[in-house]
């Protein structure tokens, strides 16, 4: 890669950042996300993993069902575990599942979409059909069935959400590849004798990448919401605390009837916070990458 190309790219990136900074909602999204990432990364500094275990939570130290006090700022659950520590470690699981599942979905979606759009013909016919089929299968029931059949573990949850989330990406990328193929510079490049590989690596991939990134940012919140729902249904990893599993624990322990709101209010607010952050960032990115979208964009589920 020549130096000119690199400096051009750096400048383009700088311009995009300047555009992004002007989007107030996008900046708010980044700040919220930074808070949660900090919470997940520095979990061991601000919370004690020993507090997650019911056995070590001494009944005298931590009373059960305790409302917030100076002692346990967010109260304790039915086993005497402080809610704060669960919330902090839950951030790790929610972010990990959200991002890892999105990576799987984006890789499958991009490969399927690029292959279908770029090669066309029977490859496109087969891949488009497959995409349509997976689009039609209702997402949550499929994820539930897969998770139930595979058994509950962190790896399976990531796999299940990843494998069920790719069709929207594939369809979007395919459409984008089709329009890129029509562009004059691609025709010119082909006329000059460029190979498929050259066209793919120099023209198609660099042009779909921004869309892939924006789409990935909007897939993460869907994945996090799915993790929460699956964990609430008891399909999460039983050995790890996540925001969804906190909601499940509190619900099955009868926290609603006891009005132990300190147990189930915070995890829900955290889910909303992270989902909102990614959604705001994704919308801002879309606006930067495609200014025509700036006013009309909508969130898709």
């Amino acid at each position, binding site marked *: 890669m020549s130096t000119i190309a690199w400096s051009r790219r750096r400048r383009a990136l700088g311009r995009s950042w300047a555009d992004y900074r002007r989007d107030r909602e996008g900046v708010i999204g980044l700040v919220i996300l930074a808070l949660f990432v900090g919470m997940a990364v520095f979990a061991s500094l601000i919370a004690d993993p020993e507090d997650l275990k019911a056995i070590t939570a001494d009944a005298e130290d931590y009373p059960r069902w305790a409302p917030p006090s100076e002692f346990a700022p967010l109260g304790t659950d039915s086993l005497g575990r402080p809610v704060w520590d669960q919330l902090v470690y839950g951030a790790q699981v929610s972010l990990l599942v959200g991002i890892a599942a999105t990576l799987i979905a984006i890789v499958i979606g991009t490969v399927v979409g690029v292959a279908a759009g770029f090669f066309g013909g029977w490859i496109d016919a087969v891949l488009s059909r497959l995409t349509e089929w997976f689009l039609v299968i209702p997402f949550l029931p499929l994820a539930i069935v897969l998770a139930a059949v595979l058994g509950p573990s962190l790896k399976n949850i990531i796999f299940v959400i990843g494998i069920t989330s790719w069709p929207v990406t594939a369809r979007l990328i395919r459409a984008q590849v089709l329009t890129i193929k029509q562009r004059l510079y691609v025709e010119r490049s082909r006329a000059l004798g460029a190979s498929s590989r050259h066209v793919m690596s120099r023209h198609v991939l660099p042009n779909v990448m921004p869309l892939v990134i924006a789409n990935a940012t909007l897939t993460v*919140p869907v994945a996090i919401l799915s993790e929460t729902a699956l964990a*609430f249904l008891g399909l999460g990893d039983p050995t790890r605390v996540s925001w969804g599993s906190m*909601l499940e624990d509190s619900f099955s322990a009868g926290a609603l009837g006891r009005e132990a709101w300190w147990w189930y209010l915070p995890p829900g607010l955290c*889910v909303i916070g992270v989902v909102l952050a990614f959604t705001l960032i994704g919308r801002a990115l879309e606006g930067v990458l495609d200014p025509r979208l700036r006013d009309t964009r*909508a969130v898709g589920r």
Partner: protein
Amino acid sequence: MTARFVVGKVLGALGTLVFVVVFNFFLFRVVESNPVATLYRGRNLTDTQREELTRQFGLEGSKLEQFWHYLEQTAQLNFGRSYATNQPVIDEIWAAAPQTIALVGTATVLSMVIGILMGISAGWRRGTNQDRVLTSTSIVTWSTPEFWLGMILLTFFAVRLGLFPTGGISDPSASASGLGHLLDQIHHMVLPCLTLTIAYLGEYALIMRSSVIDVSREDYLTLARAKGLRDSQVRDRHAVRNALLPSTALIAISFGFVLSGAITVETVFSWPGLGLLTYESLRGPDLPMLQGLFLLFSLAVIVFNLAADLLYPYLDPRVRHQ
């Protein structure tokens, strides 16, 4: 609309259906090789009993024979018997479906109407404070896990204020029949229905907002204004009617999700519908029940997608003449 178009769409939907049916078979049979052993773990079965149960669950013979048997049974809507209750799966599904249709159907219609009205006023007054408030409300409701919202509403309105029952569909102690019984059921439905309505309306509002904005750049609106029509007339007679087109397809499709839409919310409110049935089947896991539910949920989506495909060219002549 040509016959060719209709036939093409119907064949496409049938293809999808075949895919779902085949997928369903492999999903359950390949992963779980011996449900009889799993189900009756720790119990002593005689060989005759084991053979009988294996036959009952359609698990004898080679995979190919099983597949053929499965196709035959599925075509007759026979999904076998529930592991948990030993009742035919299809009977349990029919018994639970009306409650789900009543709850989620009502919530879908309500959220649609409110969401579309929100979207119109946000999109028509784009960039104003009104737009900002409506759009942020929509994004926040979209970001909320619906069952969590249900838990919060339940705590406040049912536990704290005691205005509504905490769950179920009717009060077992009240033996009222007729109108009293119906009112009691409606009273039980208010909170779950409110939860789902709030959870769904954001998506409709956001989509309606963007189609109103798309339409607002069209020349025919300028023409309508030039004719001297009032702003509200331009909006209601010209903008909204055209902006509703893309939303109509979405609406048709979202009816396909009515059956499967409330798994978590039905669980929170112990509403005895298909969602609660799904949740209870997960405990076992009750595989025949899950399998039947999964097929039914997918079938509903396929049917309403087909309806949307067929409806769209009928509503929008521009698509018809392409």
